[in-house]
């Protein structure tokens, strides 16, 4: 299942998560982001939810988190482990490549 991260729930859902968390920072006006949308939805369904949490954070509605993590290009995708950024990806990526990257964090 895909999660929705916000300024309000980011601390609890992402930074204090027991398992790695993948966050896609996106916005509706960004073409490459919309391309990633369905890919991320699919991965959220395909990957084991007990090993990694997958979700999106809309930068338009959640400016504080985008600012906090220095997001200046979207899509930027971050993997958090133990409250720290463990991996950064900027720009759209292909599903298979992204899947392989995420599986490494299990």
């Amino acid at each position, binding site marked *: 299942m895909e999660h929705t991260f916000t300024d309000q729930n980011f601390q609890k859902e992402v930074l204090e998560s027991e398992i790695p968390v993948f966050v896609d920072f996106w*916005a509706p*006006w*960004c*073409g*490459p*982001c*919309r*391309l990633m949308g369905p890919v991320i939805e699919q991965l959220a369904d395909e990957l084991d939810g007990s090993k990694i949490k997958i979700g999106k954070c809309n*930068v*338009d509605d959640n400016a504080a988190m*985008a600012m906090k993590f*220095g*997001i*200046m*290009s*979207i899509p*930027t995708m971050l993997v958090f482990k133990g409250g720290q950024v463990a991996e*950064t990806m*900027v*720009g*759209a990526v*292909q*599903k*298979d490549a992204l899947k392989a990257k995420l599986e490494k964090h299990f």
Partner: protein
Amino acid sequence: MDIRNVIIIGSGPAGWTAAIYAARADLKPLIFEGNEPGGQLMTTTDVENFPGFVNGVMGPELMGVMRDQAKRFQTEIISAHVTSVDFSQQPLKVTVGEKDYFAKSVIISTGATARRLGLESEKQLYGKGVSACATCDGFFFKGKKVIIVGGGDSAMEEAMFLTRFAEVTIVHRRDAFRASKIMQERVMANPKITIIWNSAVDEILGVDVGHVTGVRLKDTVTGETREMAIDGVFASIGHEPNVSLFKDVLDLDEKGYLKTVPGTSKTNIPGVFAAGDVQDSHYRQAITAAGSGCMAALDAEKYLAGL
């Protein structure tokens, strides 16, 4: 060995149109989407000039429906980037990593990619103030200072777009723009845009702190350099055709685009056709790419019928 009728490389308007035509001709095409599925239009918002959409259409939406249409006629789609080709014999060979695919004909529609400044600092600060997409990233520069490098229509367009958010400076290597008169006039009349002529970006500053803090500009006439504090760098300095796979294989024209026999999509190798921006240094529009994709599918169909 599984030998297909036609393999299409690239999934922009040219690739999808070729797929639709080839599939409807019952050629069971296989298309490789590449690293940028949907091609250049995925990076834009409104496309106002593609016929059939009275109120315009979003680039990604247009590419989505083209894909759906190709799929509806049983186009086989593989989401992978072709890593090499061997056109020295029949069947033609197209390779993705370790895996080879064979076909009697190939349509190349690998399009074009935005040119980069080519600086190491540009690579390191990508996503940290260096952006490849004004419409995506303008938002992050609210109340900040950005430069845009370039002198063509798209540089003007992006500069105007960025004024919604930021204070914009256009940096151009020459003392006049190449852009159309109307776009130039709009830019010159815009109080939020400053222009620096005869200058090129020599270095992007901020690698040490992890985000863009400025640029070092070099005067293209005197060679003098100076530093300027800014927060963002956008480059709009044209496009390069994606021909690296074909450099020693197919003929290129003097501008480095794939060469086709005028009025056709034929390359110098029988059975290999080219469509879209990869073979068109002149028009470079979605509709012309789509039109030439149609030509390539029809040329391939005729070629296959003659085998």
